[in-house]
């Protein structure tokens, strides 16, 4: 058992995590022996080749999937608040709810008062810059705006940790950059523990405090890199930063080995 002092600092503890999928008689090992500790308030990015199990890892953290063996623990600091909220890849906001009702979803499921809902939802809609669209239906929104709704929905639920599964993958380059910056701005004001999955090494280095590289299936921890670039970060400054270039290059080498191994 970890001691009381270290408990306060650690937010996510994963020990010896294994996940095996069984389809018929065939067994697929998705995750193998994952050990990972995420300190409170850290922005952790996970990269790795397609099919390496990073989404599975996230779904286990989200409670949408169960581990085959091993320990997964999210430390709860506030009783009564949800353990996690997830931002999904795309089109995860309910088409039948208006923007406001989508963002209020988690609060309503927890039976939060209307008063608190009004304050919280308005606050986060304002933060992602779509308060004026609160009465729109998703079909009236662009892809970027939909993902803003999804991000606001996750933050509004005030979870212990935020899980993001390639939330910007479907966006065009300009919108992607904008949303990355906006996400960092909100995050810097709230300092939630974030686990962020992405294909993009640039994105991982730009956003993360640390970047975890996973191996091709079966997914294992291949390397963990610190990103010592000071915050607040901006895309324009970073593009010319030597440290940023070196780090992305270094991580790309790691990922490339795995992609080639997987082919």
């Amino acid at each position: 058992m970890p001691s009381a002092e270290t408990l306060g600092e650690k937010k996510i503890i994963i020990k010896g995590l294994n996940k095996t999928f069984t389809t018929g008689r065939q067994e697929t090992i998705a995750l193998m022996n994952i050990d990972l500790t995420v300190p409170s308030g850290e922005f952790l990015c996970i990269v790795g080749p397609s099919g390496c199990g990073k989404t599975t890892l996230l779904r286990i953290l989200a409670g949408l999937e169960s581990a085959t063996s091993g320990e997964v623990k999210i430390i709860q600091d506030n009783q009564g608040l949800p353990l996690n909220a997830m931002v999904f890849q795309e089109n995860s906001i309910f088409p039948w709810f208006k923007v406001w009702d989508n963002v209020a979803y988690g609060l309503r499921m927890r039976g939060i008062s209307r008063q608190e809902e009004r304050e919280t939802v308005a606050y986060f809609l304002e933060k992602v810059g779509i308060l004026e669209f609160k009465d729109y239906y998703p079909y009236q929104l662009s892809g970027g705006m939909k993902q803003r709704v999804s991000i606001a929905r996750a933050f509004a639920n005030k979870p212990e940790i935020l899980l993001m599964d390639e939330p910007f993958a479907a966006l065009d380059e300009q919108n992607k950059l904008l949303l990355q910056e906006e996400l960092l701005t909100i995050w810097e004001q709230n300092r939630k523990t974030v686990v962020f999955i992405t294909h993009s090494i640039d994105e991982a280095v730009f956003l993360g405090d640390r970047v975890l590289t996973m191996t091709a299936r079966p997914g294992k921890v291949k390397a963990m890199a610190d990103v010592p670039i000071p915050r607040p970060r901006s895309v324009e400054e970073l593009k010319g930063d030597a440290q940023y270039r070196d780090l992305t290059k270094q991580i790309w080498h790691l990922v490339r080995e795995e992609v080639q191994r997987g082919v």
Partner: protein
Amino acid sequence: MEEKTSQGKKHLILSILSPIMILVIWEVASRLGLVDRRFLPPPSKIAVSFVAIVADGALFIHLKATLFRVLAGFLCGGIPAVIIGIIMGLSGSIRALIKPLIVITYPIPKIALFPLVMLFFGLGDVSNVLIVSIGVFFPVLYNTLGGVTSINRIYWDVASNFSARGLKLFLTVALPGALPSIFTGLKLGIGMALLTTVVTEYVGAREGLGFMIWFSWQVFSVGEMFVGIVVISLIGFVLTTLIERLERVVIPWKV
């Protein structure tokens, strides 16, 4: 934009034109004796019978009886179908339990059950409405079930991630997600309700549009028969339009 509205106008005129053309050809053909006037009297003659039936109040009585059976059957069949459909969609075990019964009973022509139903409930509205309800039940049930099971998995994941359970899950995911399919089912159901109502009225009623058509066949009053057919098609048109209106109100997110 302007081009679009003028295009729309053109289409509207065309869609009114086609039935009028048919009526004119029919009228001329019938008057010239190109078709047998006993079986296909000219539309103007049918209009005269129409006025006569309206004037003596008979049409109103038949219309009322038919409308009652259609609507009662539609509600008695449709409401349980939506509820059972959603429950089956939500629970795999309940689906496994009920599905075989549905699959076996679905292909039975509902009218084939009419004599059996009349053994139990006698001649009268109970028997008619029951048959109509059964006719409505199946298309609504199948579409509702299909609607729930085809809801994108990601919405269930989101609901689960935000701890939605029980009634809240039903109201925020299952019902709204299935609504478009439910309305498809309701539109099919209203057609089914009309069909089964008219057929049960052929044999099992003393009033109603189906009875009117059947009776006018027996006494060879072809004009009246056509009036019945036209009024039934109008009922179908009006009810379907009403459901489509309702659909637009209930499903504002559907484009």
